[in-house]
C-alpha cells in the first residue's frame, strides 16, 4: 500500500479506476521529475559557464592592469626555413595544377 492511493503494488487485480488514477498520477510526477532534474542540471551548467567566464575575464583584466615586464628577444633565424619553403612550394604546385601552369620544385636553397 502507498501514500498516493490505496493500491497494492504487487497485485494485478486492483480496482481499474484506482489503477488508472494511480497511473496518471505517476505519469505526471515522473515526467515532471525527469524534466525538473534535467532543467536544474542545465541551469547549473549555465551558471558554471558564467562563473568561469567571469573568472577568466577577471584574470585578463588583472593581467592587462599589471605592469608587464617585456622581455625582448633577439631576433633569431628560424630553424624551420626548409619546412616553410617546402610548404610554400607545395601550395604553389597545387595552385599551378588548377591554373593549368606546369610547375616543378627542383631545389631548395637557403639565402
Amino acid at each position, binding site marked *: 500500500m502507498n501514500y498516493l492511493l490505496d493500491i497494492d*503494488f504487487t497485485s494485478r487485480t486492483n480496482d481499474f479506476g484506482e489503477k488508472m488514477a494511480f*497511473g496518471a498520477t505517476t505519469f505526471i510526477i515522473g515526467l515532471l521529475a525527469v524534466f525538473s532534474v534535467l532543467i536544474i542540471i542545465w541551469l547549473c551548467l549555465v551558471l*558554471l559557464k558564467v562563473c568561469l567566464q567571469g573568472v577568466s575575464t577577471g584574470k585578463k583584466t588583472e593581467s592587462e592592469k599589471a605592469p608587464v615586464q617585456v622581455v625582448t628577444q633577439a631576433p633569431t633565424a628560424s630553424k624551420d626555413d626548409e619546412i616553410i619553403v617546402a610548404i610554400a612550394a607545395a601550395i604553389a604546385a597545387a595552385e599551378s595544377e588548377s591554373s593549368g601552369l606546369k610547375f616543378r620544385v627542383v631545389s631548395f636553397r637557403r639565402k
Partner: protein
Amino acid sequence: MGNIGESILKFLETTGIAKLFGLGEENAAAYQTEWWKYLIMYAIVGVLFYLAIVKKFEPLLLMPIAFGMLLANLPGAELIHTEFFFDDYYISTYGPGILVDGHVPMSRMAAEVVTEGGLIDILYLGVKLGIYPSLIFLGVGAMTDFAPLIANPKSLLMGAGAQLGVFVAFFGALFYFSPAEAGAIGIIGGADGPTAILVTKELAPQLLGAIAIAAYSYMALIPIIQPPFMKLLTTKKERQIKMTTLRPVSKVEKVVFPIVVTLVVCLLVPDAAPLIGFLMLGNLFNVSGVSDRLSKTAQNELINIVTICLGVSVGATANAENFLRPDTLLIIGLGLCAFAISTCGGLVVGKIMCKLTGGKINPLIGSAGVSAVPMAARVAQDVGRKEDPSNFLLMHAMGPNVAGVIGSAVAAGVFLSILR
C-alpha cells in the same frame, strides 16, 4: 550382459535428451508436457546468436545473454535455481517463520545460494544485490564524453523528452500488470540495460529474464526501429539542417560536471544514486586526469568482467517455464511501444527546439535522447547523412544521448521511490 544393458539404460535415462522427452525420470511427467517449450527456447537462443554474431547487434551483451539462456534450458544441468531468489521457496521449505518484515532476509537468501546453489546462482547474486548495474555504469561513465552535453546543455531537454515512452508504457502496462511490474516494463523505454535490470530486480524480479532480453534486443535493433519514426516526424528540410560547431569545453567544466550532477540528481531522487553516483564517479576518473589507472580499469577489464557475469546470469533467468508465457509477449510488445514513443518524444522536443531557435537545431538529434550510447547517436548521424552527406551530427547527437542516460536513471529513481 543384462547388467551392462541396465547400466547403459540407466546412463541414457540420465541424459538431458531423455529428460527432455520425459523418459525414465521421476519427474518425467513435467518434462513430457513441456518438451516443446525447450525447443522454442532453443529457437529463441538461435535468433539471439544470429543477431549477435551474424548481424553484430550488441554482441558483447546478446552473446552472454543467449548463452545464459541456453545453459538455463538444458534439462538435468540445473545450473541455476531461480526459486532460491523468491520468498515462496523459503516459506515452503522452512515455514513462514523465516520471514522478517514480510520478506526473507537477504543474508538468508545468500547463505542458501552459497551452500546449495550452482555457479550461475552465485553469479546472479550480483544482480540480486544490485552490484552489476552500478559497476557497468562505472565503466560507462569512464567511457562517456560529456563534453557535447556541457557545450550544449539545451540537449538535456531532448534527453528528458525521450523518457516519454517510459511513462506511457508504464501507463499501458497497468491495464494488465501490477503497478510494480508496469514500472519495470516501462523502464525498457529508457533504452538502458543496467537501469532496466536494476529496476526490475527491485520491482518485479519474476520478469527479469523477459525484460532484460526485450531491453537488450531492442537496443540492438535501434538502427531498424528508429529511422522510420525519424523520417515520419521530420521534414526533409529539417533533416538537412547543419548545426554549428560545439564550443570547446574547459577541463574545469568537465571536472565539476560529474560532481554537480551527482549532487543535483541524488539529492532530488536518492533512489537514482546507485546508477548516477557510479556513472559520474567513472566519468570523474576519466576527466580528472589523475586516475588513469582507475579509469582504464573501469572502462576495460572491470566492465568486461561484469558484462560477462551480468549477461550470463540474466540470460539464465529466462528458462522455458517462466519465459514462455503470455506475459512475455506482452512485455515484448510494450517494450517496443516504449522504444518507439521515447524516440518520438525526443524528436518532438527536438522539433520544438528547432522552431524556437529559428532552425539552428536539427530535430534528428532528439531521437538520440533514448540513451543506448552511442548507437542512438550513430543512427541520428546516419539518417542525417543520408539527406546531406556533408552533414555531421554525431557530436551534436551525443549531447541528448548522454542526457538520456541521466534521464532514464532519474526515471528509474522515480519508479523505485514510488513503487517499492
